[in-house]
C-alpha cells in the first residue's frame, strides 16, 4: 500500500523545563498546547485529534485520562474530537508523535495536535524511585533494588571494562549538555558544568555520579502536525517529518543480548535512515536520549555514528553546536531537563526551532536534517525520527 500524504509540523511550543512548583500538570500542558496552536496560526476547530503524551501521571499525580484533561482545559472539550493519552514509558513523547504521523499519513486525519506533559516535582526525595521503578520490570528488577540509575550503572561499568573507556568520556555528554543549555531559555539548568565538578559530584550508583543522571523535571511540549494538503490549503510553512521508526526489545536489561548495545535503537535508526533516504553524513544535529550519560555515549554508536566501543572518537572530534556532529543542541535530557513523558516532544520542538533557523546562540549552522532519539526506560523501546527538508 502506498501512503501518499507527507506529514509536516506547522507549530511547536513548550514550557520552560524545571521545578515549576507553582504550576499544575494541566496548566503546563495547556500552556504548551496554546503556544503550538499560536505558533501554527491555526484555530482549535482545525484540529481533528489530540494525542496526549504522559508517562507517570497515574502514579505521581494520581491523575489518569490525561487526553481528556488536556482537551478539556485547552477549551476544546465541546469540539468533541478524540483525545487519547499515549503511554510508552519515557518514550511516550515520540510514541504520540508517531501515532499522529501514522494517522495523517493514512489520509484519515488532516490536522492533529500532540500535547506532552510530565509533572514530577509533586513528589519529594527517594519516593520518586518507586514510581520510576514501575518503568522497569517491577517483579524481577525493581523488586530486588534496581533503579533506572543502577541499571544504567551496570551498563556503564561493563562498557568501561570491555572497551577500556575512562569515565570522563561518559561525562563529556553531560558537560556538553550544560554548555548548550546556557543558550536555551527553556532549559532547567543553564549553568556551565566543568569536568572537575561533574566527576566529583555525589555518587548515585557507582560508577555514575549525579552529574551523569538527568534530573526530575516538570515540563510540557506540543506540536501541531498536518498533511501536505492541509498545509498548502492554509498557506502554512512546515518542517517535514522525513521518517518515523520504532523498534522493541526485552523489557528487562538482564534479558537482552547486550548490556550496552540497544538493539531497539540500532534497528530503529537503520529503518529511519532507510525510509528517509538520507545518510549519516547528512544529519545536521542529533537530539539523543541521555537519561544517563552512558546512554548518550552508546546512542552515538547505536545510531550508527561510530562502531561499538568507539563513540569516544566522535566525542573527541567535537559534539558542540559548531562541531562536526552537534549532539543535543537543546541542552539534552541532562541540562534542558527530563520531564519523562514530554521529553520526546521537546526534542521535536528543538528540531523545529533549529530547522527554522531560530535557535539564536545555539543555532546549528545550515541545519537541514535532525535525528531524534527517544527511548523507553533502559532501551525496551526506541523511536528514531528524522525531520527536515521541504
Amino acid at each position, binding site marked *: 500500500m502506498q501512503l501518499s500524504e507527507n506529514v509536516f509540523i506547522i507549530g511547536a511550543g513548550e514550557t520552560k523545563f524545571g521545578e515549576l512548583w507553582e504550576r499544575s500538570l494541566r496548566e503546563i500542558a495547556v500552556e504548551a498546547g496554546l503556544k503550538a496552536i499560536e505558533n501554527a496560526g491555526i484555530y482549535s476547530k482545525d484540529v481533528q485529534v489530540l494525542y496526549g503524551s504522559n508517562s507517570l501521571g497515574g502514579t505521581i499525580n494520581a491523575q489518569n485520562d490525561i487526553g481528556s484533561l488536556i482537551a478539556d482545559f485547552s477549551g476544546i472539550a465541546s469540539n468533541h474530537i478524540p483525545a487519547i493519552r499515549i503511554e510508552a514509558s519515557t518514550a511516550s513523547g515520540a510514541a504520540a508523535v508517531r501515532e499522529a504521523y501514522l494517522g495523517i499519513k493514512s489520509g484519515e486525519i488532516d490536522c492533529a495536535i500532540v500535547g506532552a506533559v510530565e509533572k514530577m516535582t509533586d513528589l519529594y526525595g*527517594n519516593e520518586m524511585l518507586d514510581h520510576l521503578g514501575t518503568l522497569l520490570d517491577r*517483579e524481577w528488577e525493581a523488586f*530486588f*533494588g*534496581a533503579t533506572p540509575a543502577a541499571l544504567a550503572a551496570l551498563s556503564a561499568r561493563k562498557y568501561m571494562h570491555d572497551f577500556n573507556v575512562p569515565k570522563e568520556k561518559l561525562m563529556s555528554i553531560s558537560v556538553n549538555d550544560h554548555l548548550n543549555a546556557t543558550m536555551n531559555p527553556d532549559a532547567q539548568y543553564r549553568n556551565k558544568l566543568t569536568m572537575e565538578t561533574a566527576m566529583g559530584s*555525589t555518587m548515585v*550508583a557507582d560508577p555514575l555520579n549525579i552529574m551523569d543522571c538527568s534530573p526530575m523535571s516538570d515540563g510540557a511540549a506540543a506540536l501541531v502536525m498536518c498533511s501536505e494538503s492541509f498545509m498548502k490549503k492554509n498557506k502554512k510553512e512546515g518542517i517535514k517529518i522525513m521518517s518515523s521508526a520504532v523498534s522493541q526489545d*526485552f523489557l528487562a536489561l538482564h534479558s537482552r543480548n547486550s548490556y550496552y548495545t540497544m538493539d531497539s535503537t540500532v534497528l530503529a535508526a537503520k529503518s529511519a535512515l532507510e525510509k528517509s533516504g538520507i545518510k549519516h553524513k547528512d544529519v545536521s544535529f542529533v537530539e539523543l536520549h541521555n537519561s544517563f550519560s552512558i546512554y548518550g555515549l552508546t546512542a552515538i554508536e547505536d545510531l550508527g555514528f561510530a562502531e561499538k566501543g568507539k563513540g569516544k572518537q566522535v566525542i573527541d572530534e567535537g559534539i558542540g553546536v559548531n562541531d562536526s556532529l552537534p549532539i543535543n543542541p537543546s541542552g539534552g535530557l541532562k541540562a534542558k531537563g527530563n520531564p519523562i513523558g514530554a521529553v520526546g516532544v521537546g526534542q521535536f520542538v528543538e528540531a523545529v526551532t533549529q530547522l527554522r533557523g531560530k535557535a539564536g546562540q545555539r543555532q546549528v549552522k545550515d541545519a537541514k536534517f535532525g535525528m531524534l532519539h527517544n527511548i523507553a526506560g533502559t532501551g525496551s523501546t526506541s523511536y528514531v525520527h528524522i525531520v527536515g527538508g521541504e
Partner: protein
Amino acid sequence: MGKLSAVWRETNHRYRLIAHECGNCKKMYFPPRDVCPICHRESIGKMKEKELSGLGTVESFTIVHDAPPAFARQRPYVLALIRLDEGPVLTAQIVDSVASEIDIGKRVRSVFRKVREDGKGGIIQYGYKFVLE
C-alpha cells in the same frame, strides 16, 4: 508496594530459583516464561519447571547509594547482573562480601535473604541474594 498475593505467587521462583526450560530447544529462562522467545508456538505447553543451581558469575555490578524507600536501611548496597551456570542472567544484590573484592568475572552463589520491607507496618519480602564464592 507489595500486596500479599503478588508476593506469595512468586515465592517458588524467588525462594528456590525455579526456572522454566523450553521443552523444544532446552534453553533455560529465569524469570519463568510461558512462551520461549526462540521457539514461539512450538514451545506452548512445553515450558517445564527446573530448579537452578544458584551458582553463577558476575557480569557487571554497581554500588547503589540513591535507593528506593524499601531499601533505605540497606544503603549502600551492591546490585549485580549475574549469569547463572545454566544460562539465564538475573539482577540481584551481592551481600556479606567485601565490596572491593567484587569484580566482573567473580564467582557467586545464591543465598536466601530478606530482600525488602514496605515501611514499618508493611510486609517483609524474601528471596535470593548472592555471596562471593
